């Protein structure tokens, strides 16, 4: 019947036009620009956290807030320190008051006083964005507002983010949040504005104990890279397949 054929044709053409919309999203840039953008692939940023050295002083969290203009009293932070106390009855008590911004000066955890003689082990675990190789947060951004730079850092375009929060839900590590003033997604970016100038991230610089160190995995002479490649290190939650680039020394099995 000619009617239904016309109708079919109408739908095919209509569908094709609707498909043209997504196809036009695949904009590829010229080879010169691509080369310039990829010039930084001599660098792949990574991070090393030594939990055996962390004393829970929290200067890193304070420095990060000041350096990256995260409102000081807002209960969100780009990096934080967790405290774990494993007691003899097999329980693990963990907390992170204000992300460890003011350090840990009380023994009490969630209203429970823990006596030193009941403790098997206790330690501090700094956490920050893992700048994953396969970042789940980037995969789920509906508009291309978050992305991976050629040197491996995951950045957020503040002018383009629509604030849907999908990236925040998708991160298995909980490093993302809504910036309380800018009203877009935010997270640690290894102090990208500093490392690209040869400076250390603010948290690395402020750590008096050497618990935090930044590395360039592509530089074989980088002393931190040497530790990552030759010594026993661990990552957080590798079961999600995100391939994180923050490596830990002394990561205990009780760490969440």
């Amino acid at each position: 019947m000619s009617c239904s054929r016309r109708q079919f044709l109408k739908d095919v053409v209509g569908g094709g036009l609707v498909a043209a919309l997504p196809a036009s999203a695949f904009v590829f840039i010229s080879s010169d620009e691509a080369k310039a953008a990829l010039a930084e692939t001599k660098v792949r940023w990574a991070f090393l956290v030594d939990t055996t050295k962390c004393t829970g002083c929290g200067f890193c969290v304070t420095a990060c807030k000041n350096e990256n203009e995260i409102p000081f009293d807002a209960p969100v932070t780009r990096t934080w320190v967790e405290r774990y106390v494993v007691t003899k009855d097999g329980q693990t008590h963990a907390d992170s008051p204000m992300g460890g911004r003011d350090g840990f000066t009380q023994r009490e955890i969630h209203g429970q006083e823990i006596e030193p003689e009941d403790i098997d082990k206790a330690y501090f675990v700094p956490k920050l964005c893992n700048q994953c190789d396969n970042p789940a947060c980037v995969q789920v951004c509906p508009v291309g507002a978050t992305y991976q730079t050629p040197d491996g850092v995951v950045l957020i375009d503040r002018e383009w983010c629509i604030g849907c929060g999908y990236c925040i839900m998708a991160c298995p590590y909980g490093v993302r949040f809504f910036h309380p003033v800018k009203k877009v997604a935010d997270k640690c970016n290894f102090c990208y504005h500093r490392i690209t100038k040869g400076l250390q991230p603010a948290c690395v610089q402020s750590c008096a104990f050497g618990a935090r160190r930044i590395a360039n995995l592509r530089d074989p002479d980088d002393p931190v890279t040497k530790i990552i490649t030759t010594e026993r290190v661990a990552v957080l939650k590798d079961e999600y397949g995100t391939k994180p680039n923050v490596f830990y020394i002394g990561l205990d099995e009780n760490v969440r």
Partner: protein
Amino acid sequence: MKRHVLHPLWVAIGLVGLILLARVFMVPDDFGVHGPSFTYNYYRLSNIQEWKNFPVKYRGKESCAECHEDKIRMTRRSPHKRIECENCHGPALDHPDDIEFLPTNQDRALCLRCHASLEYPNNARSDLPAIVDRHHKRNRACVDCHNPHNPREDAE
């Protein structure tokens, strides 16, 4: 065959055309795939430079040494030599051009970050001298008696 069947199609085409036209004006020219993968490298290229231009706040000890070599020499003789000046003095920013005197945090709470006794076994913190806050000279600033630049000496 009745042509009017196609009228809604024209409307649909018009709408899609409008959206494609809107893209020309509303999407920045450098928005696209800038890397090996559409999944991870779809973004606005100029944003990278915007982040590189973000202002630096902390200058680091080497820049303090330019004028305050004496204080730094004092810390070098003590276990506090590995603490960044700006941890207690705040970010230098453009000091002294924008701020003449950096606000120094002299609260007890600052020193307690490392020196509050938690008695955790097998922990780097236990290597540090520590006090129990409520048992040691409450309501006084630590710096009243302890020199933060070299705590092994008396206060200035």
